[in-house]
Every structure is written in structure tokens, then in C-alpha cells.
């Protein structure tokens, strides 16, 4: 299997590089690849911010950016220029080193995610043996960044928000990691490339490319999706930096480009968590005829990722925020027990002496059972909550009454 780095190295060797410089050629190939990946991600972020603002505006019956460029396309560029020209304020009693380091460390892990994302067969940064855990481990750096930002600003609100963010990230990381264990166990590998390959579906010699794990593990997928929303600090889990209510939580003291770094990290993180969902559950580049026409692979991958990202924005545009106690108990009392029982069921089913397809069927049944249980728990909880919020009056229409208010005692 030729990977992109092999091809690039090969090209350099053909161009007449001496054989003893082969490691250097490989390093140059790696550098080109890494450079393209990172810059691609930055351009993607520009588009992504515009798409997000447009989509959420439409959902909420607004227009969104429409002044700069056609359809407001260059709004983000203008924003970046504005942020560049802003004063770089450093609070007097901030801890200078940690204060500067925190925004850098929040972008760093997000960009590092690119290393194991599978765009097409052979086109993955590197196919690490620990791919899936590598993705999880990068999240730990993000946690440290939030902690450093909160603490070094020397502001009690930043500190409190930083701690709450960390508590949220910690609480939802466990269900996320355990949900990621389900496809890893099915594929028997942590290499993202191999997981993608395991999601092929052969009908005779033809690869239909529809053996996506989501068809087998819908429960694990939904749990992953919910936890990913919380990890990306997206609505309904964004109560710590609710743009419309609070002043941005732990990065309250940041201005200019440092603030932009947190912003960039958050957007790209949401997108990459969607990409991870695609890699683990939605078949990565797999799809009909992806084997025959190589260009379809990256196309499928990007389309799926944008769809998942769109779903995240859809949720963001429609759902109200949770309270912090609801959020915490949802992670520990609903998601973790459910995903643990799911893993337990999968472990036992995979060792039962039955044909594979019956095993798959049983896993599917277990997953659907988990989803049903989760929905049941949630509806029960919502009913229980809605008792306390009875309306004091019944509005005549949704918009409100146009009739003049009765003047009392005049």
C-alpha cells in the first residue's frame, strides 16, 4: 500500500536526489504534507465560520453576515483583519507565561488531530498504531489549556469558568472514550485507516462501501455524538461560555489574536469531532464505487463530515441550554452506565459460539435497546421538569395579543 508520503518521497528520488539523502527526502515529504494539512485546516476554518453563521442565522430566522463580499463570504476575513489590529491587552496581575501559552496550547491539539484523519485510502497523515487513543490523548492538552487560561487571567470569573469547563470536559470524556471502544473492538485495531477499511461491505467481489459501524452500533454512535457536542462545548452544552448570556467564560481576559485562537480552536474542534465520528462510525471514505473511482473517497469523506457538522449546527440552532446539574448528572447517570452496559453486552456477544451474523444482530438489538432506554429516561425526566413551569396565563396566539392592555384602577 503506497501512502502519500511514499509517493512524495518517490517523486523526489526520481528527480535525482542521491539515495543516501532518502531520509531527508522523506522529511521534506512529511513537511509538505503537514504544511498543506495545517493550511487547509485554516482555510477550512474561514469557510466553516461563515457556513456556521449563515446556517444558524437561517435556522433562527435571521439573515446572518451579508455585507462583505457576495453573501457575506469575506466577513470572516474582515473579522480576522479587525482582530489583528486590536490591542493585545495583558492584564497587569496575570501570570505572563501561562497567559500567553494558554491560547497556543488550545489550538495546538486541535491541529494535531489532522495527523490521523483518513481522507482516502493511503491518504492519512500517519496511520498510528494507537490512532484512536491518540485522538483522545490530544483532548487532555485542551483540558490543560482551559485550566491555564482560567488560572493565569487572575480573574475570579475566568477561574470559575475554567474549572467548570474542565469539569464538563472530564465528565463527557469517559462516555466518549467508551463509545469509541465499540468500533475499535469490532475492527480489532486502533489504526484509523484499518477501522475505515473494516467498514467495507462486500457483495461478492464488489465493495458496496456501506458496512458502516453506525448500522451496527447506533447506540454507541449516539452516545459518541452527544459526548462530542459536550467536548466541543457546543449548544446544548455551551452554558459555560454562552455567547448570548455570559462573556465567554474562561477567556474573558483575552483580546485580539489570543481570543481569536480560542475561537479558532473551538470551531475546528467541532468540525474534527465530526470527522472522527465519520471515521469511526460512518465509514470514513467508504461509499458506493469508492474503490473504482478514487476521487470519490475524499468527496464522500468531506460530504459526510460536513453533514455531521451541519447536524451539530442544527442542534446548536434549535436546542436550549442545559443547567449544569442536568449536564453533569446526564453524563454520569445516563451516558456512562448505558455505554458500559453496551460494551459489556458487546464483549459477551462477540464471544458467544454463534454465527457472526447472529452476533451482529444481537449487538444491533442491544444498541437499539440502549437508545430506547435513553429516550425513555429523557422523556420521563422532561415530563418531571415541566411540572414546575406552568404558564401563569394562556397566550391567545404564539406572537402575543395585539389588543390593548386593560388599564386597571385608572
Amino acid at each position, binding site marked *: 500500500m503506497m501512502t502519500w508520503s511514499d509517493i512524495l518521497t518517490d517523486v523526489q528520488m526520481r528527480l535525482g536526489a542521491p539515495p543516501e539523502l532518502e531520509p531527508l527526502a522523506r522529511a521534506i515529504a512529511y513537511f509538505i504534507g503537514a*504544511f498543506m494539512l495545517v493550511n487547509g485546516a485554516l482555510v477550512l476554518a474561514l469557510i466553516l465560520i461563515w457556513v456556521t453563521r449563515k446556517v444558524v442565522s437561517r435556522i433562527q430566522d435571521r439573515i446572518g453576515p451579508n455585507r462583505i463580499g457576495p453573501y457575506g463570504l469575506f466577513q470572516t476575513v474582515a473579522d480576522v483583519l479587525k482582530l489583528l489590529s486590536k490591542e493585545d491587552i495583558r492584564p497587569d496581575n496575570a501570570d505572563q507565561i501561562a497567559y500567553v501559552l494558554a491560547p497556543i496550547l488550545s489550538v495546538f491539539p486541535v491541529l494535531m488531530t489532522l495527523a490521523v484523519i483518513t481522507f482516502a485510502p493511503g491518504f492519512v497523515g*500517519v496511520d498510528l498504531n494507537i490512532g484512536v487513543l491518540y485522538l483522545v490523548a490530544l483532548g487532555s492538552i485542551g483540558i490543560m489549556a482551559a485550566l491555564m487560561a482560567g488560572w493565569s487571567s487572575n480573574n475570579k470569573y475566568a477561574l470559575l469558568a475554567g474549572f467548570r469547563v474542565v469539569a464538563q470536559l472530564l465528565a463527557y470524556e469517559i462516555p466518549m472514550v467508551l463509545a469509541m471502544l465499540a468500533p475499535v473492538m469490532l475492527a480489532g485495531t486502533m489504526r484509523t485507516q484499518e477501522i475505515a477499511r473494516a467498514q467495507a461491505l462486500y457483495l461478492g467481489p464488489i465493495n458496496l462501501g456501506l458496512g458502516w459501524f453506525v448500522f451496527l452500533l447506533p447506540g454507541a454512535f449516539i452516545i459518541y455524538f452527544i459526548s462530542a457536542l459536550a467536548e466541543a462545548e457546543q449548544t446544548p452544552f455551551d452554558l459555560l461560555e454562552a455567547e448570548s448570556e455570559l462573556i465567554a467564560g474562561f477567556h474573558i481576559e483575552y483580546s485580539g489574536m489570543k481570543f481569536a485562537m480560542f475561537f479558532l480552536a473551538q470551531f475546528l474542534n467541532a468540525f474534527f469531532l465530526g470527522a472522527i465520528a465519520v471515521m469511526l462510525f460512518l465509514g470514513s471514505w467508504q461509499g458506493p464505487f469508492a474503490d473504482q473511482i478514487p476521487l470519490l473517497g475524499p468527496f464522500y469523506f468531506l460530504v459526510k463530515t460536513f453533514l455531521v457538522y451541519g447536524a451539530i449546527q442544527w442542534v446548536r440552532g434549535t436546542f436550549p441550554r442545559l443547567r449544569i446539574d442536568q449536564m453533569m448528572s446526564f453524563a454520569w447517570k445516563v451516558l456512562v452506565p448505558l455505554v458500559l452496559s453496551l460494551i459489556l453486552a458487546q464483549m459477551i456477544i462477540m464471544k458467544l459460539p454463534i454465527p457472526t451474523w447472529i452476533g451482529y444482530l444481537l449487538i444491533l438489538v442491544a444498541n437499539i435497546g440502549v437508545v430506547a432506554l435513553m429516550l425513555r429516561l429523557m422523556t420521563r425526566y422532561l415530563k418531571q421538569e415541566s411540572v414546575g413551569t406552568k404558564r401563569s396565563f394562556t397566550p391567545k396566539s404564539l406572537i402575543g395579543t395585539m389588543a390593548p392592555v386593560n388599564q386597571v384602577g385608572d
Partner: protein
Amino acid sequence: MLSQYGFILILSGIAMIIPVAAITIGHLLGPRRPDPIKNATYESGVETIGDTWVQFRAQYYLIALIFLIFDVEVIFLYPIAIAYQNLSLFSVMAAVTFVLILLLGLFLEWRKGALEWK
């Protein structure tokens, strides 16, 4: 195999340089007119009283604690998942016991009320 990590190394270099460059450019391009009010702690215009000392509740510690224990158990489950195809029934029972003890721990915390966010 180690040459794979060469890519990680190069990528981490670039991923470090990008935010550093952005912040440096922002620092150079932006105006610099510090004054004591601007550089004071931002609390919506209200003057800061006392230092950053806030009373934290042990709840945060408990969340991190539960996370730590679960994290440790997760790192033991992943290699088992990799080796799963070749494990005997006895080994699988050991792994199942491991997960069951994990669940037991969770229910213990639940009963003790460590999961309530008050």
C-alpha cells in the same frame, strides 16, 4: 515505525508555529496604549474586591477523581479490545469482571451522592 512519529514531530512543529505567529503578528500590528484601568481585571466595570481566591467546592475534585479512575480502567480495556479476537472464554470472563467492578464503583458513587451537582 518510529519514522511515523517523525511526521507527528513535524506536524507539531507547524501546529506550534501557526498560533505563535498569529499572536506575534497581532501583537506587532495592534496599537499599544496600556493604561491601568484597561489592564485591570475585567469584572464588567465593577472594581475588583479581594484577590482571585474563591471558595471552590469539593465537587470539582470528586469529578476529576471519578474521571481519573475511569480513565485508568479505559486504558486497560483498549488493548483487550485489540486482542479480543484471540482471547479464550476465561480471559473474556476476566475482562467482563473488570467492567462489572467498574460498574459497581459507579453505582457506589451514585448511592453515596458523589454524582449530585448541588
